[in-house]
């Protein structure tokens, strides 16, 4: 379980897989998800192995999640916003309908 070192700051409510949790303004989705103890945040497209945020700086692509309806976003590179809806991803993303 990860803990915030600095708990000061304004709070926002975000939603992770249907559950409302509090996050701190300015932190990344990955940080918020780890602090909420969410564990694995996706499974890989080919072998289905569980994965979680790793580098926290945008290079490893381990932190891919569905954020506000868009799959495969790097959770460590996106800041939390009020009401944000975040989902774990299972395997490969869908292509989705016509864009």
């Amino acid at each position, binding site marked *: 379980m990860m803990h915030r070192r600095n708990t000061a700051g304004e709070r926002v409510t975000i939603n992770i897989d249907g559950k409302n949790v509090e996050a701190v303004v300015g932190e990344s989705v990955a940080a918020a998800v780890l602090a909420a103890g969410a564990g694995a945040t996706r499974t890989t497209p*080919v072998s289905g192995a569980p994965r979680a945020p790793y580098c926290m700086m945008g290079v490893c692509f381990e932190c891919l999640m569905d954020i506000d309806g868009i799959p495969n976003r790097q959770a460590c590179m996106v800041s939390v916003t009020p009401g944000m809806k975040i989902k774990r991803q299972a395997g*490969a993303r*869908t*292509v989705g309908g*016509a864009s």
Partner: protein
Amino acid sequence: MPAPGAPRTFDVAVIGGGMIGPAVSLGLLERGLRVCILDEGDDVLRVARGNFGLIWFQGKGFGMPRYVEWTRRSAMLYADFAAELKDSTGVDIGHARPGGLELLLGEDELAHRQHYLGQIYQQGGGANYEVEFIDRKQVADMLPNVTLGEDVIGASYSPLDGHVNPLFLLRAMHTRFQQAGGTYLPHHRVSGVRKDGDAYTLDTEGGSVSAPKVVIAAGHGLKTLGPPLGLDIPIRPQRGHIMVTERAQPMLPMPISAFRQTVEGSIMLGVSAEEAGYDDTIDTATLHTIAARAKRTMPQLGNLNIVRTWAALRVLTPDKCPVYAESDSHPGIFGIASHSGVTLAAANAKVTAGWIAGDPPPPEFEAFTVERFHDAPA
């Protein structure tokens, strides 16, 4: 024991470790010959590392029925070739032959494609030419997970089309080659080939090699290696761009010419054609054109992120058909130049190798001469 410094000797020296050299070499080893592959280092033009991975039949052989036959032959040999590679090396090259589509946007493209394929059919593809036209509804039935763009009016379809993972193919061929006793010599760029008694000596940056037979399967390298050896084959580079999307759930059950989905889920988008000399850098305007066509054909592709992109240089002859030729002035030296070296790998391993080893050439090769580029038209 050879004298120190004497060239290493082989039955056949193959110049080039890309798509064509290793395929031919596997067949030579099967025939019990001692074979070496002389190759360059890593940072070189090597189309085997930059291609799209199609095993493609439809549309090949315009103006040359023998090339239609040769492509068909390779497509039919591929399943066994892939299975052999997997059994011996454990590498699955991901071969599948689910058939392939070329989607047509608008009446003009349909008319043009009908004319083009009609010519190939009439030139001798014959009644059993395995390509047909299907309408939009039939396309939609074949691609249940795809929302077709409104301009798609139909497609040409061939049951012979398929694909592989070309990097696994390259790796499998190299692994098999060494496993079967072949000698692979990277960093052995050949600077020249000299007649030396009954054999040829190949001078390289890594020492000399000697063999009575030499196969030049050097891709763009043939341009300079060939002419002094009686193989003046006018090849030119033609650049093609490829883009790769993030991995996604299965959407394309078959390759659609310039679009194919890998087993891992990535969708590859291609393929452009520019005359840019030996410049293989990326041109963003071309990438834009590729992406725009992808979206027009299958709008949902617009949802996907592009994660990689590159350009590579095709090895093209003036008529886009291959050359398989033995030199008249230097018997025992063979030159092979072809686009579609992925498609032809199975035929190169199973048939071309026999010709190098001394079998009569397969009937298709009567058309794949060097002279066709030099004789004045009658």
